[in-house]
């Protein structure tokens, strides 16, 4: 197994590193993301207040030394809530994509490896899933299941699954035809083992790149659903929910909706920057050179 | 200096930028072309034949390509110094080019007929109706069956050989004086190749055009060319009238090239091949480009490149070789 891993990991990361480095600007995305992640991780340490703590005397305050970004309609500290909100956005964004990535890749590999009717059926269903707009899908699923963190993750994962099924299937089909797979089969290796040892390493690079692109979308959907009121229920701070509350009282204090929005934008932008730098890795035109 | 040449290329050098450095793809090209003449440009792939033709047409993609030096005179006018707009009026009008890949060189979303008449519209003062008439006439001349009906067809509806006929019709639409044919038959089946070659030769005679014919196939050269220029590693290594070249090749590379051609008339048991390959443009040897593969090479060959000089008593036959051609005193060289 160690043999397999060195054979595969080194070239993959070398390629990722090479392509990524050509797009210097993507490093800004990495730096941004690191900052956002440390904010989220260190939330209990750096936030000056409790995120749900209300200061009745200090509603709609502007930025000050006491409240760095001001307060909302209940006098809650915006900076504190933003930092705690980062936890929700980043967790829901990454967990949902990883979940969708695992399910989608298994489905895609299975469909590509088995071929025939099973392949046809799975991929048709994936195509149909893919044609339903991501936000609507999330909205509908959360509406049916009821709003909660878990349901939010399920809803977003569901929209992500078909994309990964597709990207996992195509290389599986071509790898399956190769002689050494034929030989493995002749030697009596199980299908599961062939898929894990021979197919998976070949598609992992593409899947990971695709994953980083979809986290951007997942974070945006999470924010949108929270904005609509289908996110993690209050009083837990979410960026989308904060924008919503701020927007309803926009005339009193525009900052309450502007500041959390900036953080949504920055997070999605960071993931898009990274994804854009990595995109070249899965672009077959560039791969030839 | 000969004013009467139709086309004269002097000291043409075209370079490509690779990771910041300029590397010459063709260097010091000297050649000329007279009226009604066919000059064959021969060499292995990557030797700079197409780059030479594209430089003459000023079609080198820029960047990364760049014409570094030289002159290209057509009837006394240097094409390389013309403003782009005047050069445009020469392209496809006075001088046209036929490309290698008829599959990808035609625009898939425009009708074949339109692509042929397009050159007429922009170069000649004709109405659309007249241009269409002329286009159909040319389609007939290149022997596309039922031309007027196929005028409205798209390239994907044509076979490979017929697409090359369309390419020829496009190039000849304005009756150019010079035609540059870049391996026009390479992508085609052997039987179709012969038909296309025959057609080109016939039309060339009929329109009294001059042609530069680029190929790596010496068999074709023997049947079509008046003179031959052999290229290696971005340089012309030997130029001669076609008969002289086949009978008494002087450059070691030409010799090897001729020996590598399968021949039925000579009962040779073993076909020779040239060991190694053309060096890429960023790894060109400092001296004679052929030296690393040459049987005759001397110490000087590795150090310095020879000039393309005429053989004594044969002004039309020129060779770039220290041993066979350049008779400069070897001792004088550093």
């Amino acid at each position, binding site marked *: 197994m160690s043999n397999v891993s060195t054979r595969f990991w080194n070239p993959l990361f070398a390629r990722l590193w090479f392509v990524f480095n050509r797009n210097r600007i993507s490093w800004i995305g990495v730096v941004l993301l690191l900052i956002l992640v440390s904010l989220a991780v260190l939330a209990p340490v750096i936030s000056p207040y409790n995120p749900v703590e209300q200061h009745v005397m200090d509603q709609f305050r502007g930025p000050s030394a006491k409240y760095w970004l001001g307060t909302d309609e209940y006098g809650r500290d915006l900076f504190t809530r933003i930092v705690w909100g980062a936890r929700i956005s980043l967790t829901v964004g990454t967990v949902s994509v990883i979940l969708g990535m695992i399910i989608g890749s298994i489905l895609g590999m299975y469909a590509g490896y088995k071929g025939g009717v099973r392949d046809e059926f799975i991929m048709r269903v994936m195509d149909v899933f893919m044609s*339903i707009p991501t*936000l609507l899908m999330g909205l509908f699923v959360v509406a049916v299941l009821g709003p909660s963190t878990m349901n939010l993750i399920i809803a977003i994962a569901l929209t992500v699954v078909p994309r990964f099924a597709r990207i996992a299937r195509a290389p599986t089909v071509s790898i399956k035809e190769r002689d050494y797979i034929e030989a493995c089969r002749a030697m009596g290796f199980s299908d599961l083992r062939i898929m894990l040892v021979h197919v998976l390493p070949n598609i992992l690079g593409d899947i990971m790149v695709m994953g980083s692109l979809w986290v951007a979308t997942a974070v945006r959907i999470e924010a949108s659903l929270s904005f609509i009121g289908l996110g993690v229920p209050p009083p837990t701070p979410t960026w989308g929910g904060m924008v919503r509350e701020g927007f309803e009282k926009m005339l009193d204090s525009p900052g309450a909706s502007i500041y959390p*929005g900036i953080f949504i*934008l920055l997070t999605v932008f960071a993931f898009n920057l990274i994804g854009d730098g990595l995109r070249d890795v899965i672009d077959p035109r560039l791969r030839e050179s | 200096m000969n004013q009467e040449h139709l086309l004269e290329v002097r000291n043409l050098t075209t370079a490509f930028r690779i990771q910041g450095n300029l590397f010459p793809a063709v260097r010091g090209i000297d050649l000329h072309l007279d009226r009604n003449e066919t000059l064959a440009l021969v060499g292995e792939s990557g030797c700079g034949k197409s780059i030479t033709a594209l430089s003459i047409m000023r*079609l080198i993609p820029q960047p990364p390509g760049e014409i570094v030096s030289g002159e290209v005179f057509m009837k006394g006018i240097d094409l390389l110094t013309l403003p782009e707009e005047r050069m445009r*009026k020469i392209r496809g009008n006075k001088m046209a080019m036929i490309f290698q890949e008829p599959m990808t060189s035609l625009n898939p979303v*425009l009708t074949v007929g339109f692509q042929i008449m397009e050159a007429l519209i922009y170069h000649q003062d004709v109405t659309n109706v007249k241009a269409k008439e002329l286009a159909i006439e040319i389609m007939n001349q290149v022997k596309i069956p039922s031309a007027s009906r196929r005028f409205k067809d798209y390239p994907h509806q044509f076979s490979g050989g017929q697409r090359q006929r369309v390419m020829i019709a496009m190039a000849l639409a304005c009756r150019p004086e010079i035609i540059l044919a870049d391996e026009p038959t390479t992508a085609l089946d052997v039987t179709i190749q012969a038909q296309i070659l025959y057609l080109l030769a016939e039309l060339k005679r009929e329109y009294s055009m001059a042609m530069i014919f680029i190929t790596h196939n010496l068999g074709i050269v023997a049947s079509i060319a008046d003179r031959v220029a052999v290229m290696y590693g971005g340089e012309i290594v030997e130029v001669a009238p076609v008969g002289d070249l086949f009978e008494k090749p002087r450059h070691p590379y030409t010799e090897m090239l001729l020996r590598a051609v399968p021949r039925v008339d000579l009962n040779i048991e073993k076909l020779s091949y040239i060991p190694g390959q053309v060096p890429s443009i960023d790894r060109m040897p400092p001296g004679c480009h052929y030296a690393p593969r040459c049987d005759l090479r001397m110490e000087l060959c590795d150090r310095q490149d020879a000039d393309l000089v005429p053989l004594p008593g044969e002004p039309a036959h020129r060779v770039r070789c220290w041993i066979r051609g350049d008779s400069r005193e070897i001792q004088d060289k550093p």
Partner: protein
Amino acid sequence: MIKFVLNRFLLSIPTLLAILTIVFLIARVIPGDPASVILGDSASQEALENLRHRLGLDQSLIQQYIQFITGVFRGNLGDSLVSGTSVMREVLNVLPYTIDLTIAGVLIGIVFGVPLGILTALYRNSFLDFIARILSLIGLSFPAFYSAILLIIVFSLQLGWFPVISSGNLLDPVQRLHHLILPACNLGLIMVAYVTRATRSSMLDVLREDYMRTAKAKGIPGMVILFRHALRNALIPIITVIGLYIGVLVGNSVLTEIVFNRPGLGKLIIGALNQRDYTMLQGLMVVYSIIIVITNLITDLTYGFSDPRVKYS
């Protein structure tokens, strides 16, 4: 040609059926009882039974499915749980607003995105290209509700150029347009980012093609080469890509309608959500499914007409 259109039309019916089936399955098969979600945890058993009966949830799954599908094909999407009016009527009332918004958004996206994409492809790796790339990445990253809020703050509250609430009287063209501009720009600006990127990459592919060199060798003027030879070919994949963005567009139009408080399908769906109007929600999903299938059909047909290699038969 009529055969081609008819053929594609018939082919899109199974797709619609498949989407409807998935909508149906999500609504019924996923664990969780819609009745208890609608009424909340404190509802009495009797009330739950009552609602289940009203929703047809006490019937067998097959029966429900057949009723659902036949209903859709008859144009009957059921009645709203809250107001009791037909879902179809409510949809038709607000549909013009959503159509206005979406078409305007796509138009803005194409009108600005295509030329910008061409320019960045022609001057690739230039400063302009770099700036356009960063800006379009920012565009892609904007949640539509946030950009809408920023537009309102700047253009409605600060400058006062446009009304904050954008509905307008459908019969008064000036008012209709005035209320449309800001939301349409919100949808359009994000679209510009997508279209620019798609156009750039498609143009770059085409510029590398052999036939571009052929056209230049024919001595055709540069502008003619660009538009007739390059753009005609580049547009074919662009059409497909724009068709694919219908998903993004639909999502963004919902958010835009909420922020601008503009009547439309998006407003309707949020209203249904807040009031737990289950039939309305399901009906709207059906309407969106139909919209998506129609968009795919239009994309397919446009593609067919712009690429001669697609056979009409």
